[in-house]
């Protein structure tokens, strides 16, 4: 698993701009709030630049973003590297034919959907979300894309919560994060 180069001065600015909200959505959870990063134009710009620098020129034709915060980071990256943007959504949001993948939550399961035909076999894909915790959501995205024959080259997140070992649920797919929040 790769982490952004901690000596890159942009990383410190990005880390500082993330707000931590205790006890959200429930007691004991320290929520990593990226909305404050989006208010700092330089930090938001730097976040996108760091991903674009890593992924441009690598033949990636699809950026898949996980609803909803993956929709904030994914499209600017897709536009900059010349790729399609494909939203990975909660059930019943995407119109038209979809394929679905179930994944586990702490209690129960949820489903992720992708449009049929959005991604073709053999395409190289980058999966984006704001944060990786348990890796359940990203694991579902990787499986969905694999089912249509696409190759997920990497998962990229702004933040990782390493104690939750989300990396282990991604199989062979590498993970790249900018900030590790222990």
């Amino acid at each position: 698993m790769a982490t952004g180069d901690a000596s890159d001065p942009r990383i410190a600015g990005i880390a500082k701009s993330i707000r931590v909200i205790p006890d959200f959505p429930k007691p004991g959870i320290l929520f990593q709030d990226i909305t404050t990063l989006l208010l700092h134009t330089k930090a938001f710009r730097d976040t996108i630049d760091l991903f674009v620098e890593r992924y441009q020129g690598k033949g990636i034709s699809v950026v898949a973003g996980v609803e909803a915060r993956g929709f904030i980071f994914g499209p600017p990256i897709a536009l900059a590297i010349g790729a399609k943007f494909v939203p990975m959504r909660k059930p019943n949001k995407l119109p038209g034919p979809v394929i679905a993948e179930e994944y586990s939550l702490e209690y129960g399961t949820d489903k992720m959907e992708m449009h049929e035909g959005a991604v073709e076999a053999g395409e190289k894909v980058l999966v984006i979300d704001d944060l990786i915790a348990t890796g359940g959501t990203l694991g579902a995205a990787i499986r969905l894309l694999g089912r249509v024959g696409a190759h997920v080259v990497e998962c990229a997140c702004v933040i990782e919560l390493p104690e939750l070992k989300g990396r282990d649920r991604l199989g062979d797919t590498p993970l790249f994060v900018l900030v590790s929040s222990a």
Partner: protein
Amino acid sequence: MFAAENGLKGDPRLEAISRAIRVVPHFPKPGIMFQDITTLLLDHKAFKDTVEIFVDRYRDMDISVVAGVEARGFMFGPSIALAIGAKFVPLRKPRKLPGEVFSEEYVLEYGTDCLQMHVGAVQAGERAIVIDDLVATGGTLSAAIKLLERAGAEVVECGCVIGLPEVKGQRRLDGKPLYILVEPRDIDDCC
């Protein structure tokens, strides 16, 4: 107002944007011809052009806030914000934003819904635009405008990729200018 009436008449980019949008009949319920922008996001040039048209319009208007409505407003707003040097502020469904929020209720066909914005995201006096993929009745955009005004911002304009017939001929929504790129398509127009 439609972009074609405001300096972009005959602009080939608008035609390509319109053609890239897919119509899905009877979604989410019978009788609705859903304007699906996900196919626009698959067309790199058309998606890039969509963002560029908004950026060209807003870059010299001293806009410091781009507010995007969950969830499809998130697909267009941030790229515009980054290009014009503005903050991006997500306007979300209830209980998604973790911090202290302003809430604004609005009317649906059946029942009501609610839009929220973080307190402190926007300062009094800031000039803001609201971005969404589509405007139909304008209920959601009205709620968005109210949220921004409660924080003391000035909403300069609302920008949407698609404008449904209900807003055709209206240049304003709640007194705010409306800027729309394309009209909805019929299923017969589709490839």
